[in-house]
């Protein structure tokens, strides 16, 4: 489904089809999120809950307001799916979370965590979570994904996300976003996974999932 067909399907009121596709996408996303949560739980040695993934569409310029985090300082780990499915993946942590996670992973008190250690640890964790997420989906639908090496940035939420929204605005008037939240039971590990899905990836995921459903029925 390309952008135009998505917009026109909205206009024509074929909402049922889209809801159904979004349900499929939510299910696929849950598989990835479950795998990532397991990885996070093992790394941090504590239970991690996941919120039911959300799929939403919004014009890119409205997404900052949707989150309403504006000036909150966050650390983001960013990766990109390369190739034809090109899409952006962001893992966003509260800035304080970085230190807590680094302390847990390096088994040292939070006050002893050096900024460089915190930075490299969160980048490594982001890499593992993003890898776990795509690996589960890849196994399910039988398509290999190649995420780029992660990059990390610490800044306010709006400043970080505006980079991706501009990129979205360059190529589309409606962003298709997958979002899930991880909640650490013992006060660490809280983060948001946001994926700006490309139309190509969206189409392929739905097609593969439908094929899988057909095969399951047979």
């Amino acid at each position, binding site marked *: 489904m390309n952008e135009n067909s998505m917009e026109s399907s909205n206009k024509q009121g074929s909402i049922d089809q889209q809801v159904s596709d979004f349900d499929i996408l939510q299910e696929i996303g849950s598989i990835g999120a479950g795998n990532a949560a397991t990885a996070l739980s093992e790394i941090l040695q504590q239970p991690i809950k996941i919120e039911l993934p959300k799929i939403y569409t919004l014009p*890119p*310029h*409205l997404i*900052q*307001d949707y989150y*309403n985090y*504006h*000036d909150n*300082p966050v650390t983001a780990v*960013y990766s*990109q799916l390369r190739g034809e499915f*090109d899409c952006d993946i962001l893992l966003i942590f509260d800035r304080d979370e970085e230190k807590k996670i680094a302390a847990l992973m390096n088994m040292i008190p939070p006050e002893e965590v050096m900024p460089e250690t915190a930075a490299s640890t969160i980048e490594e964790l982001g890499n593992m979570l993003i890898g776990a997420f795509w690996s589960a989906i890849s196994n399910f639908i039988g398509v290999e994904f190649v995420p780029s090496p992660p*990059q990390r*940035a*610490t*800044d*306010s*939420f*709006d*400043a*970080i*996300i*505006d*980079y991706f*929204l*501009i*990129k979205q*605005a*360059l190529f589309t*008037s409606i962003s298709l976003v997958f979002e899930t939240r991880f909640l650490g039971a013992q006060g660490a590990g809280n983060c948001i996974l946001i994926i700006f899905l490309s139309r190509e990836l969206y189409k392929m995921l739905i097609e593969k999932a439908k094929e899988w459903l057909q095969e399951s029925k047979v």
Partner: protein
Amino acid sequence: MDNPSSRNVAKISITYNATIPSVMLHEQEEIRVNMACMKVGNTPQWLVATVGSCVAVCLFDGVKKCGGMAHIMLPSGGKDKDMLPYKYADTAVPALVESLQKMGCEKTDLVAKIAGGANMFYDQKIRAVNVGSRNVEAVKKSLACHDIPLVASDVGGFHGRRVSFNVFTGIMVVKSFNGEKIL
């Protein structure tokens, strides 16, 4: 304020330094200017935008004591321009000028201050176009087309900025993780 999305309103206490006029040392309204939006005003209030690669364009008329801010995302809409003039540098500047003229400002009295246009991440696909610096160039070009002098700017780099602009005094405060600048 002629923009509909004015729900992010908060009260802030301004305590920056002694160089700021006393009129600002009071609780003043802070109004957020979201992406692709614009706000104008002529009372002591702060317009605020948080920008990374976007650019906050502020125009001020020192005679009428009024000003406005546009939060632009892209240099130009090209053929696919939607109905969001404040999204693009080439349409935001004239639209902001027009709004200020409706408030009684003279175009010849306007000056501009801008902030933003950073490059937050390395990305092969859009690094080639470096949208942050392209935004800045497009804003400068549009200001020049309208003969509006650019009197201050804080642009580029690799960090976000919280831009506060006082529409009554024309003072712009730019905060980032690197510190604070008053323009």
